[in-house]
């Protein structure tokens, strides 16, 4: 029970990072982006490539940091992967979403995002193969925190949680303290009025994708650290991430953070009563419950 709770918090931090980017894009561009979770895959795989590259160029980088399986090479690779994933998100927007947006409805965007997700997922499968991969083949033993109640935690998971919290704190600082943060919130509130006040809408959209992509990449790497990387990573995470945004309320960044943790914890606690085969259904049940009790989510405002 306590183990499920702790696991839920750790998974939750990954979902939160994914949900922040998704909720920002959904709020600003007004469409449910089903390809967002594929950005996690792009991030995870680019980190894998650069990790290999850095370790080969300068072997001392391949040493693990302290008790973690995380290496110096992978940490550098993660930062680069965040930049690359942000850039990919912008490119995808320019190539597909911006054009579909110019042509028509919000729902065409949803269709397009499904198409984009299929393309990314299967291209990754073609390039990297369908089998699962790992960042490190070293076995890192979980540390027994306590025996009664029994509690196991891997050092990597603790690192991921702390890193995710730091990233969220930085984002909070940017959003609440800088002109850019105000501009971003202004655009989300009322795009036309924000433009009248001299905010460049196009640049804001680009920045949203960069931030969303960067956070997704970090989430993808953290997921890969404690699980495996495979091409269907995005497919497995898309519904939990959507559940997190709906729990938090579409458009609310803080809601997404909280939603991620709630979905992570609820999914893991649900395994106490449900057989583990049913875990892919749990996010859907959470969505149904939220829609029944409070359709706008925790912090969402009503908008048609």
């Amino acid at each position, binding site marked *: 029970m306590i183990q499920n709770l702790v696991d839920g918090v750790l998974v939750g931090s990954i979902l939160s990072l994914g949900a922040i980017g998704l909720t920002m894009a959904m709020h600003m561009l007004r469409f449910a982006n089903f390809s967002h979770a594929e950005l996690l895959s792009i991030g995870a795989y680019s980190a894998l490539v650069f990790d290999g590259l850095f370790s080969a160029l300068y072997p001392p980088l391949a040493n693990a940091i302290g008790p973690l399986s995380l290496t110096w090479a992978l940490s550098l690779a993660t930062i680069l992967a965040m930049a690359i994933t942000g850039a990919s998100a912008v490119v995808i927007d320019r190539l597909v979403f911006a054009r579909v947006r110019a042509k028509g409805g919000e*729902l065409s965007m949803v269709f397009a995002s499904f198409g984009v997700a299929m*393309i990314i997922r299967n291209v990754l499968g073609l390039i990297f193969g369908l089998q699962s991969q790992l960042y490190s083949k070293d076995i890192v033993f979980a540390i027994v925190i306590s025996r009664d109640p029994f509690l196991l935690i891997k050092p990597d998971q603790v690192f991921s949680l702390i890193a995710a919290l730091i990233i969220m704190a930085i984002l909070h600082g940017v959003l609440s303290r800088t002109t850019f943060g105000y501009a971003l919130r202004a655009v989300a509130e009322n795009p036309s009025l924000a433009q009248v006040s001299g905010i460049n809408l196009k640049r804001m959209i680009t920045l949203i994708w960069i931030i969303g992509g960067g956070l997704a990449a970090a989430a993808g790497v953290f997921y890969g650290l404690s699980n495996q990387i495979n091409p269907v990573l995005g497919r497995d995470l898309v519904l939990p991430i959507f559940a997190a945004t709906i729990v938090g309320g579409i458009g609310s960044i803080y809601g997404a953070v909280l939603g991620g943790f709630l979905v992570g914890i609820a999914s893991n606690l649900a395994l106490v009563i449900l057989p583990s085969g049913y875990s892919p259904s749990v996010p*859907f049940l959470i969505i149904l419950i939220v829609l029944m009790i409070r359709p706008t989510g925790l912090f969402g405002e009503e908008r048609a």
Partner: protein
Amino acid sequence: MIGVLSYLVFFATVASILSIAVLGLNLQWGNTGLFNGGVVAFFGAGGYGTLILGGTPQADHLGGFDLPYLIALLGGMVIAGLLAWVVGILTLRLRHDYLAIATFGVAVAFENLMRNAEGLAGGAKGLRGFERPLRQALGDGFTYNVLFLIFTVGLLIATYLFLQRLIRSPFGRLLRAIREDETAAQSLGKTPARVRLTAFIAGSVIMGLAGGLYATFYAFISPQDVLPILTFQIWAMLIVGGAGNNKGAVMGAFLIWGAWTASGWALSRFAPLDVQLYTGSIQFILIGVVIVGMLLWRPQGLFAEKLVVSQSGRA
């Protein structure tokens, strides 16, 4: 010769079944503007429903009520409709994204449930013990398949005519009015939420019919038949054919199903052996490219919707 002919019969049967599903989606998306991200759940509900109601009793899972075939098929449609009612009533009052996410979720959950709940529907092994109707009289051969094709095409034509009448009726005009401008429709005293729910359920019932026929045709259904890729295929059919146009929907279904089977055949025939493992990936990329490409270059589809002016603007 008979080989080619029986393949054509097989192809036409599956394409006709999928056409029915595409027509159901067209009612939801093309005519009403409802995004259904989980077509396969309603298709599957019809398929599983039909086999459970019409199958012979089984020891290890529910079902085998041994009902007459047409009642079982109808029951499958009702089950698909009930599923749509539950999803619709929760989401149709909210902004569009919620329906997209919830329907996507219902498809994931449906497949997951069917795969795991052995007592309900046989789990990953699938649902067995269904006898195709009139099998004793007609046997399993070519004659049976031809007659089943005729039965399917008959239902396809019936669905097509029903929908053509429906969209020309006042109700059809109401659907388009809500799609184009919900507030305006509301100001004329219409209740968009209820009308949308009706259209969503009707479309899902049609998908359930397609699923029921599909399961009958194979006399078997398993979680492998309700994977998300089927949803994408059905969408691609509608988008290529032309959302809002029933003729386009049927043409799109035959076209995309033809392209899908042809690409699968070509890949298995000409691709080197080590690429064969990735046949699925390549086909999925093609479907993705078709969807995105059509939205970019010809969003109205090959056969665009013909907008009718009910009353001319001359005063």
